[in-house]
């Protein structure tokens, strides 16, 4: 796996086509790191010249802004935009829908204008223009799986089809949950909930969501967001189903077919 920082690439006199925005979860969370590495391997395989920002990347500011801390958001966003603009970045891909939403929708007003893609969108592009060819067969062909729409890719940005068309390319047997697409139920982590305990109630939201998933009797649950993956895994664990039913990011499934 090769994943150079933009500084490293520039010192070699090269310019990346695209920046891979790794995000805090993708950088530090052990589960999300696997997705980060999977995406890098796919991009290597497809011959996409990409770079990461490495230590020059900061939190996009999503949790701070949604918690209400606008000062902190503006600070971290301004630093990121300074960095991105300094390197003349035009195109960004990220595996985190929260970073995706913030960079795509909230940075332009602050002077950061980039073409921002979620990795499911980029992977679709790569398949469409022939840069990425999936091998036949594989573990997921015909496998009964269900797909969880993250709020920040789905409702927040109306991206419902890109992940589904990848699942179609993978030949999985996609069974939708009763609440899907626009009506998808949150995993419970958004709006900075990831960093706090639930308010008093009678159930955790991820349990409610995992029950939706279990109704489809899936062999695996697929998500597109590091926070959703954590929440769904925790939910399945609470139901003692985590051994039988893994939670994947789509990139991890694509990786098995290269």
């Amino acid at each position, binding site marked *: 796996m090769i994943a150079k920082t933009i500084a490293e690439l520039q010192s070699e006199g090269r310019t990346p086509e695209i920046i891979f925005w790794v995000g805090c979860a993708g950088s*530090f969370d052990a589960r999300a790191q696997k997705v980060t590495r999977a995406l890098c391997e796919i991009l290597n395989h497809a011959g996409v010249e990409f770079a990461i920002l490495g230590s020059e990347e900061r*939190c996009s500011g999503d949790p701070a802004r949604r918690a*209400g801390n606008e*000062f902190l958001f*503006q600070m971290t966003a301004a630093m990121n935009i300074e960095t991105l603009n300094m390197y003349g970045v035009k195109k960004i891909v990220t595996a985190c829908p929260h970073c995706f939403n913030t960079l795509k929708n909230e940075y332009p*007003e602050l002077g950061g204008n980039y073409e921002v893609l979620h990795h499911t969108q980029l992977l679709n592009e790569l398949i469409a223009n022939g840069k990425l060819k999936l091998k036949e067969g594989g573990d997921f062909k015909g496998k009964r799986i269900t797909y969880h729409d993250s709020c920040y890719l789905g409702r927040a940005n109306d991206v419902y089809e890109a992940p589904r068309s990848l699942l179609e390319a993978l030949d999985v047997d996609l069974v939708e949950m009763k609440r899907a697409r626009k009506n998808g139920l949150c995993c419970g982590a958004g709006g900075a909930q990831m960093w*706090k305990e*639930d308010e008093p109630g009678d159930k955790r939201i991820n349990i*409610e969501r995992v029950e939706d998933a279990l109704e489809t009797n899936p062999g695996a649950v697929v998500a597109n967001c590091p926070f959703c993956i954590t929440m769904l895994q925790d939910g399945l664990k609470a139901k003692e189903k985590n051994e039988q039913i893994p939670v994947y990011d789509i990139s991890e499934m694509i990786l098995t077919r290269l």
Partner: protein
Amino acid sequence: MLQSLLFLLVAGAGSWFAWKGFSRVWTNIQLGKPETTTGDTGERWRNVFLVALGQQKMFKNWLPAVLHLFIYVAFVITQVELIEIFVDGIFGTHRFFAPYLGGFYTFVISSIEVLSVLAFVATLAFLSRRNLLRIARFQKPELKGFPSRDANLILLGEIILIVGIFCMNGGDKVLQSRGVEHYHLTGNFAVSTWLGPALFGGLSDGAVMVIERFGWWLHILTVFGFLCYLPYSKHLHIILAFPNTWYARLTPKGQMENMPDIQKEVRIMMGLDQPDGNAPAELPEFGANDVTSLSWKNILQAYSCTECGRCTAACPANQTGKKLSPRKVMMDVRDRAEEIGAAIASGKASKENYNDGKSLFDRITAEELHACTTCNACVEACPVMINPLDIILQMRRHEILSQSAGPAEWLPMFNAIENAGAAWAMSEPREAWRD
């Protein structure tokens, strides 16, 4: 002559009371801060036509959508008959348009009758959904008391309207068939041609004439009653749904409103921009702690809310037993606007420096605000494009920025972002996953 005078009196008084009510709502909406309306006009018209007029978002749930459509279309088309009631009321005529329109008149009134029957069925269905089937979203705590009575009163009013129509038309048909003078032939109406004789066929001419007039007056009095009641009721949505869909933001749902003041301050602090000498002498309040610090659009939305509770039913926090209910947020904003509006109207206070020692936080608690996952399910669910999330986020901003409060668990995250540039404080470098 007496009837004309009586009618003018009712119409005048009704219009005056209604005007007072609507002015109050208008003034209360102005309690909010100015917000300009940006974005494509074509898309705004599209929202008005598809979402408000076309009820597009209602059809996520087809059964109530169809029932609601019956009442809605019946209401709209009955306005045609109302024109005639006005003309007859003022000039003392009887079914003024019938001789001029002929068969078309019969068709229009028949359509009204068919839709009225459908609306009658729908109204009974709605009453039973609320009171017998007790659909979950109608049993939430925020509907206890007036909101629940308000809903039933509106449905009752609809039944009275329909009863009025059929007394009036049914009586008329009986009198027509008996050749009573003054009741000219109108052709066969779809329902009252058989319903009239079935109900009133055995009564004397005089009694049927009373029933016909009773129906006419019942109808018009209920219409004026509705008009005066609207500005005090959730039923106001029949009007405000239209401006509300027009003014709804067109930006992606995930995009939060920027705070340019803070942006400017931060850029100066970071040395990215030079101070322009316009720095405020004292720190302003950030976010919203009251309707006066919300946008006027938030208050318009609050008045547009018909308390259907689709937002609350879709809310993941509410479904899992948390206190948050997006519908309650909207109702609280409206009720607070009413409270402040009433105090100002009574001359006890002025809008400029309003202070009654209370705020929106007395109604919407921190616990409710902290339960939100910002998932936009409430925004997506609303049939008239209300955005409860925007209010929640403005109040969170006030809590953090102006009150320095908020969940203590967020402090490590804030500190990590500020000091380490990551949402978690980690010791290894950001790109350590490469190794």
